[in-house]
C-alpha cells in the first residue's frame, strides 16, 4: 500500500504527541480502540471553563493512518468550541489525509476519540462541581 503525502508527513512528524496529567480537571481523556484490533488511540483535550479546546495531545498504537488521523485531529480541534468539535465527522479526516477505503476505520476511531475525550471532560467537570458542592470544606484544606 502506498501512503498519501499527508499521512507520511503526520507519521514522520506527528503533531502534539504526549500526555497531560490525568488528574488535571481541565483535561478530558478519550481512549478508544482495542489492542487486539490493532488500534488504540488516546486523545487528551485541555478545555477551558467556557468550553474552548485550548490544547490537545495524543498517543496512538496503530498503523500509519491511525497515527496520522490522531495527529491531524489534535490540530483540527485546537481553538474549537466543544460543540463544534463534537460535530466533527470522520469524513473530514478521510478527505484531509486522502485515506483509502480500508483505512476509513482509522478516521472513525479518531472521531470517536474526540467525542470520548469531551464526554470525559464533561463528566469530570460535573463530578468536580458535585464534589465541590457536596464537600465545601475541601476547598479550605489547601
Amino acid at each position: 500500500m502506498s501512503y498519501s503525502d499527508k499521512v507520511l508527513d503526520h507519521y514522520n512528524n506527528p503533531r502534539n504527541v504526549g500526555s497531560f496529567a490525568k488528574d488535571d480537571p481541565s483535561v478530558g481523556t478519550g481512549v478508544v480502540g482495542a489492542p487486539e484490533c490493532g488500534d488504540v488511540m488516546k486523545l487528551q483535550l485541555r478545555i477551558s471553563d467556557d468550553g474552548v479546546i485550548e490544547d490537545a495531545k495524543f498517543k496512538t498504537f496503530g498503523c500509519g493512518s491511525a497515527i496520522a488521523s490522531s495527529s491531524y485531529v489534535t490540530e483540527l480541534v485546537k481553538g474549537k468550541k466543544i460543540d463544534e468539535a463534537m460535530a466533527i465527522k470522520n469524513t473530514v479526516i478521510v478527505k484531509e489525509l486522502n485515506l483509502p477505503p480500508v483505512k476509513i476505520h482509522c478516521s472513525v476511531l479518531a472521531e470517536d476519540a474526540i467525542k470520548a475525550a469531551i464526554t470525559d471532560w464533561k463528566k469530570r467537570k460535573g463530578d468536580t462541581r458535585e464534589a465541590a458542592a457536596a464537600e465545601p470544606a475541601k476547598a479550605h484544606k489547601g
Partner: protein
Amino acid sequence: MVKTPIYMDNHATTPCDRRVLDAMLPYFTDKFGNAASRNHSFGWEAEEGVDKARNQIANLVGAKSKEIVFTSGATESDNLAIKGIVEFYKDKGNHIITCVTEHKAVLDSCRALERQGKATVTYLPVDKYGMVDPDAVRRAITDKTVLISIMYANNEIGTIHPIAEIGKIAKEKGVVFHCDAVQAVGKIPVDVEKDGIDLLAMSGHKIYGPKGVGALYVRSKGPRVRLTPIIDGGGHERGMRSGTLNVTGIVGFGAACEIAGHEMAAEAARLTELRNRLQAGIFERLDEVYVNGHPTERLPGNLNVSFAYVEGESLLMGISDIAVSSGSACTSATLEPSYVIRALGINEELAHSSIRFGIGRFNTAEEVDYVSERVSKEVKRLREMSPLYEMAKDGVDLKSVQWKS
C-alpha cells in the same frame, strides 16, 4: 554505508541468481523449441533442457526424475496434490488431515473441497512454537482418511515440522502424505525417501530461480501414488499436468536446485549466523521483544519477532528503506492479523506487532547490523507514541483494561 533499500523478505520471493539467469537465457532465443516437439532438433534441444532440470530437481529431494511433474508454481502443485488425490481416491474415502498454519494454497484447496461436499477436513492445531504434534496426526486418521497435508517449514515463522515422524505414521496407516516444502527445499535437507513423503510441492522463485514455475513430486513406487489432473489438455507430464512446458522457467528452476544442493550446508550455516546476529542486535537494544516460532527447529534465514506496544504496519512504514513483512492486520485485506501468529496462542496485540525478517543468499552482515539498528530506533520512537507502552510503564495490566472498541 550499506546500499538501500535492503531486501530482507526472502520468504516472499528471492532474486534470481545470476547463474540461474545465465542458464536460462539460451532457452529464450536459440533453444526456443517446444519440449513436446518430438520430430525436430528444436524440440529435442528444449526437451534436453527440461530433462536436465528434472534430474537436478529430483536429485535435490532424493526423488527419481520421472516423479517430477512441472507446474506453474507451488500454488498449483498444492491444488493438484489435494484436489487430485481427493478426486482419484473418492471411492476409498474423503477425509483430509492438515494443520491451521498451512499456506493458503493448501487451506483454500481444502475449503473448496469442503464447500463442494467432496471432503471433510481436520485442521490440526499447533503448539506455541507453531509445531504440529505427530500423535495428533495419528489420532486424527480414520478409515476414510485419504490424505495428510502438512508443510515442511512454515513461511511466516520458519518452524520446521517433524516431517519424518509424520511420514512414518502415514506409511504405517497407508495414507498418502503430501508436503508443501516450498520454504524448505534448497534450504535444509529434504529427502522424500527418508521423510516418507508421497507428494511434495516446490517452487522456483523461493530458491533464487524464476517465478511462475514449480513442481510436484509424485511417488511412483512404494506405493505408486495416482491422482486426477486438474488441468486437461495435451497430456503432458504423463497426463498429470497438460500444457506446453515453461522451458526457460524449468531450466532456471533446475539450475537453482543444483546450486542450492551444492551450497546448502555452507549457506545454511551463514544464514543461521546472520539470523542470530540480527536477533542479538535487536534484543540488546530493546526490551519486550518476543520471537515467534520454534527456538531451534527453524529455517536458517527466518526471524519472526513481535515488538510489544508497536503496531507492525506502522513499523514497516518507519523503516521504508528495508523490505520485510508484517503479520499486522493492516497489511492484509481482511483487517485480521496473521492466522499463523494467532494460531500460536499468543495475545492478539502481539500478533499485530509481528515482523518477519527473511535473510537470504545475498544479504550481508553489514545489512543485518543496519537493520537491527534502524528497526530498534524506530520501535523506540513508536513506543514513545504508544498509549499501550505508557500504560504498561505505569504498571497498568493491559489485559485488565475494558477496551471500548
